[in-house]
């Protein structure tokens, strides 16, 4: 089981006559006010009693498309603990320009509570206490705090958001951080438009109905479709009862992969002027064509001429393809600084990014793809979804689930995945954020296809510690750390946080309790492809533990675990590390003639099922030199909930082993 447990279900529906309805606004029943606990989750501080959302596509007065979304919710607060997290409502709105923008209106809220005499009182939201803030050029927020909250109150609120953007059709989160008794979402979609719906998360719908409303929307504007043309609507209701609160776990990927929600994607639109149908996402072929024509994607990939002059000096004298590839990769890394925004598309075109030396991940990596192609290296773009963005929806072609793009270069029959956003990444390695599920490979001349984002890269660290026990009971020697693969990248990043190697050494010197670092030799200046090697002269002073001529010495000198990183008895979601790892420690101790080793540790070995990894210790001695080594291997990126207990036990075994000591005895 390597894939996260994301479940997408195709929603196929029986056509029914019945339809759910919004619950009436402005009514509260005594039972809700008297409720002191939610029986299904007695430790909940609040519960959503009822929640109803609806999205309806229609027209505004000028027959422009307008999607109206209404959210209506009734929430019970048992005590005051969730006032901060649930008591303030925030919605983000987008505006393209002064004539095309999203709008929030009809905001209302009522708080009901019982006064000291047991009478029901209510307080309504004051319209002057709704705050609208222009956050950035295209984004604004609307915020309001639910009025007069107090322990035991029931609050009802509702608001409307209108959007002119067909792509902005809102989905619905059935599951959030507090439990819900009932949650319903209803959509009205006229036949002019077609959307795909997908249900994410492991929970099932409690009810789901669909009916057709005849001639529900009539077009009154002019154009190819005769004025008066009307469409039938699909009226679909999705409902869940008794939705538990979502509880996050450590070492999991995006909670989006596991929270129950419904998402929509535009498939087809009918142009009301011409009557022409535009398919958006029927199949991958349509998407491929769309991307190819997209001005901020496909068009950018065609701009190889931008690089003709720029690459001249970069490629001068290079004949080997690999050499060329690396040179172009470094050129892009040094020319466009990633602005930490993720996007599969260029923001304003790669020319702009090259000139302003900055851009989002789309700018950086589309420039990379184009530059590599310009250098004669066959390179494709790979659309993907970062770990934080959740796994890709594979139920149907869905371009909206991608939020990032990287390059796939083919050199000497071998393919290399490249991301030029991180200056310290070596050629062929990806940052952790990209290691998520699958990516879709796109090129100008071939149909797109899926690839696994799992790469051979791993985190690997080796410590070699060589110590000599001194007459005075001190241990002196060297400590070397080799950071290999992804670990080398992380180590380089860590070192870069310091202004100089000297400052980094100051940091390292205080890092490990009980070890005195006296001298250092750190090499980072060489190629990013190489491991980072650090060597320190160290001194360990266990003298104050000398008792009856015996010295106890723990060979677990650095990075002791002490407690298990996994605390839960069982998990609901898989553990996802992103990539495999390996940590190896080799400790050699040279004993002077007057010392002997009193106890020889027993070698240990613990393995995970399915070659998932292991922990192993080893010990050898010839009397005067002893070598103790231990290794922890995590071979998979993802461990299922069934494998979890074994993984937890592996760490428990490490902690038990850490308690052992070597005892040296003075003759």
């Amino acid at each position: 089981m390597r894939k996260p447990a994301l479940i997408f279900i195709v929603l196929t529906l029986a056509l029914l006559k019945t339809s759910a309805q919004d619950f009436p606004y402005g009514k509260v029943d005594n039972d809700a006010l008297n409720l002191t606990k939610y029986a299904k989750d007695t430790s909940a501080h609040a519960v959503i009693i009822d929640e109803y959302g609806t999205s309806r596509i229609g027209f505004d007065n000028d027959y422009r498309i307008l999607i109206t979304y209404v959210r209506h919710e009734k929430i019970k607060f048992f005590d005051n603990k969730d006032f901060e997290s649930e008591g303030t409502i925030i919605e983000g709105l987008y505006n393209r320009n002064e004539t095309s923008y999203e709008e929030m209106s009809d905001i209302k809220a009522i708080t009901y509570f019982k006064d000291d005499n047991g009478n029901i009182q209510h307080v309504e939201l004051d319209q002057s206490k709704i705050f609208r803030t222009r956050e950035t050029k295209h984004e604004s927020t609307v915020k309001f705090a639910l009025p007069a909250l107090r322990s035991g109150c029931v609050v009802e609120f509702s608001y409307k958001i209108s959007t002119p953007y067909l792509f902005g059709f809102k989905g619905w989160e059935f599951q959030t951080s507090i439990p819900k008794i009932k949650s319903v979402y209803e959509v009205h979609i006229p036949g002019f438009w077609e959307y795909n719906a997908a249900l994410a998360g492991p929970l099932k719908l409690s009810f789901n109905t669909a009916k057709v409303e005849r001639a529900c929307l009539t077009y009154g504007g002019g154009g190819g479709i005769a004025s008066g043309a009307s469409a039938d609507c699909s009226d679909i209701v999705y409902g869940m009862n008794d939705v538990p609160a979502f509880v996050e776990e450590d070492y999991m990927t995006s909670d989006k992969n596991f929270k129950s929600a419904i998402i929509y994607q535009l498939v087809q639109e009918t142009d009301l002027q011409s009557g022409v149908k535009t398919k958006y996402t029927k199949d991958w072929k349509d998407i491929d064509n769309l991307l190819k024509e997209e001005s901020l994607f496909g068009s950018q990939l065609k701009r190889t001429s931008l690089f003709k002059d720029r690459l001249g000096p970069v490629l001068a004298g290079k004949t080997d393809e690999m050499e060329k590839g690396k040179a172009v990769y470094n050129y892009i890394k040094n020319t466009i600084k990633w602005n930490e925004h993720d996007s599969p598309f260029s923001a304003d075109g790669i020319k702009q990014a090259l000139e302003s030396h900055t851009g989002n991940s789309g700018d950086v990596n589309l420039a990379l793809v184009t530059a590599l192609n310009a250098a004669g290296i066959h390179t494709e773009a790979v659309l993907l979804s970062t770990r934080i963005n959740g796994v890709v929806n594979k139920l149907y072609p869905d371009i909206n689930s991608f939020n990032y793009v990287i390059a796939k270069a083919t050199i000497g029959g071998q393919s290399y995945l490249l991301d030029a956003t991180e200056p310290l990444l070596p050629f062929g390695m990806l940052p952790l954020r990209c290691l998520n599920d699958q990516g879709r490979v796109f090129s100008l001349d071939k149909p797109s296809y899926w690839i696994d984002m799992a790469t051979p890269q791993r985190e690997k660290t080796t410590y070699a510690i060589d110590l000599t026990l001194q007459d005075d009971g001190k241990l002196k020697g060297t400590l070397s750390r080799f950071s290999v693969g992804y670990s080398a990248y992380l180590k380089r990043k860590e070192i870069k946080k310091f202004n100089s190697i000297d400052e980094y050494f100051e940091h390292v010197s205080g890092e490990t309790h009980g070890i005195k670092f006296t001298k250092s030799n750190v090499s980072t200046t060489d190629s990013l492809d190489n491991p980072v090697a650090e060597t320190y002269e160290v001194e360990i002073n266990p003298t104050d533990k000398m008792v009856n001529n015996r010295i106890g010495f723990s060979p677990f000198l650095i990075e002791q675990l002490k407690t298990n990183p996994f605390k839960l008895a069982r998990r609901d979601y898989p553990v996802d590390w992103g990539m495999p790892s390996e940590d190896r420690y080799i400790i050699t101790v040279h004993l002077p003639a007057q010392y002997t080793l009193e106890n020889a540790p027993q070698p240990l070995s613990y393995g995970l099922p399915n070659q998932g990894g292991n922990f192993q210790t080893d010990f050898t001695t010839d009397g005067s030199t002893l070598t103790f080594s231990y290794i922890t291997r995590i071979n998979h990126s993802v461990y299922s909930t069934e494998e979890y207990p074994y993984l937890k036990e592996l760490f428990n075994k490490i902690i038990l082993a850490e308690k052992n000591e070597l005892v040296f005895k003075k003759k």
Partner: protein
Amino acid sequence: MIKTKILIGLLLLTCTSAWAQTNYDASLIPKDLLRYASAVIRNEEITTEVKELDNVSYHVKRVITVLNPNGDNIAHMAIYYDKSIAIKYIKGIAINEFGKVIAKFSERDFEDVSTAGNSDLFEEYRVKHYIPSITQYPYTIDYEYETKNKQSLSLDNWYPAPENGLAIEKSSYQMICSPDFNLRFKQFNLPAKVTIGKNKEGIKTYMWQIAHLLARKDESFSLDGRHTLPALVFAPEKFSFYGYTGTFQDWSQFGKWMYDNLLKNRTSLPDETVQYIKSITADIQDTKLKAKKVYEYMQQKTHYISIQIGIGGWQPFLASDVDKVGYGDCKALVNYTQALLKVAGVDSWYCVVYGDHYQKRSLLSDFANLEGNHVILCLPLKNDTTWLECTSQEIPFGYLGDFTDDRNALACTPEGGKLLHTPKYTTEQNLVTRKADFTLNETGDLTGEIATTFKGVDYEDREEIVGKAQADRLKDFKWYYPINNIEIKTLNYKQDKSLDPTTFENVKLAAREYGAITDGKFYFSLNSVDRISTGYKQSNNRTNPVTINHGHTYNDSVTYTLPAGYRLDSEPLNVTINKPFGNFTASLTIKDNQLVYLRKLQIKDGSYDKETYGDIVDFYNSIVDADNYNVILIKK
């Protein structure tokens, strides 16, 4: 004759291109300034000109070299504004390592965003910010901007090196004041005194300069920047502020102005609330108990929401508004509580203070000015001054905690401002007492319970977990105690919210394989209840004196009932350390099959010289060693 011509030529050149005059080649930075530096201010010239009380211009010219990517954030330009501040212009250039201009920028390039985060309901402040994108280090940006400020109460103070990692080649601040404007100022850690003069229009000028300041890095146990870094703080005598005017020279006058202009007449309440408060307090004779009743009513009726609006964020909402909506920021909730108390016949004072858990930031005793970031309420009861934090629904009556204890507060009263000092929680009062009873069986499994009480500022140590649902508590609790394989049987929290509040934590637990058995020896960690696992780093070049903000006392007593037939194989633990800043004792004794572990740690608040830091490092290293002690038992 020829010489004169050349000079004129040079002058003309400087006039036409102000930017070409200085060589900002990065290699010209003095080498000793590079230590710990990610960025260096090559030259900074700030000029504040008070033209009129409602017309203050602020002009900044800054040249900063960024040495590596860590310096990007330091050099990031951010210009804050609200409705009283207009940005006149921003312009600048970027220069490469060798002093060559590589880019130009202006206000157009700056992104304009709100400063409010998701946790703020509203903020009037906005910021324009930008950093040119340059991939080759070092690079230099040379820019200037000017703002026009319509108020003169909050003048721009000067913190020449506000951040770690920033060195200064040279920097200056000039203040130009119209003849009728009397400036007050206070300088901290500035090497040179002010130079007072007149400019060519005959207007009074003040000038401060600083040069060759080395970059600093974080130092543990240090006071906040104003005590250790160069700073210059200003205050006017006469001022204009969002349409209000005033005059002050001391805290008394300033507090009076605050009261008269921003606070007075904001406490009226709807009649029902007045009647209700009267009814619930009518039967209480004692003033303090009356206040407690009113305070608890306020707590259950309101909650805190950050909202910065009106009069530069200094005026509270009307009490009647809070009464209706049930929320407010610190100002609004203090004002509301004051209004409720007034109805009950209890006098109280609105007090401005700095709230900070980690630093005891204090209003300046001898320099009245607009400062502070928080508001609390003071009850001037006879011989029993009581303080109320009004932004928490959970905090006990009369409790401040480490957020506002032991520091100056300005009480704004009708009679004038009074600078008061909030009470201090002492080393002995900040007490954590822990008693654990454990049983270890033959196979190393552990069962037992831990009972802990938290007092003083430590009363709030468990505030976060106390506020969570039980399911989340069970998950989070495991992080408090480093007991491997911990399995919680029961977990309870109780809080006594009396005037000497206490938090109680009781847990029953089990842990499989807590001890390891190999070769007939039984190994286990002695201290899994209160372990310090990392000490502090030794530092060779410490610059700040040592300050311990809060003292604490931790008393732990742990009893292990051991499996029969074992004796101790390791040397018994027995550590005693006494230092001026703290004491530590740890001991282990075995009688029959009872192992008793006693640990007491006391850290004393106070100021110590910078050499003490080395002793603190040694002190903590010894504690880490002692806390790491591994018990080794062997069969008798």
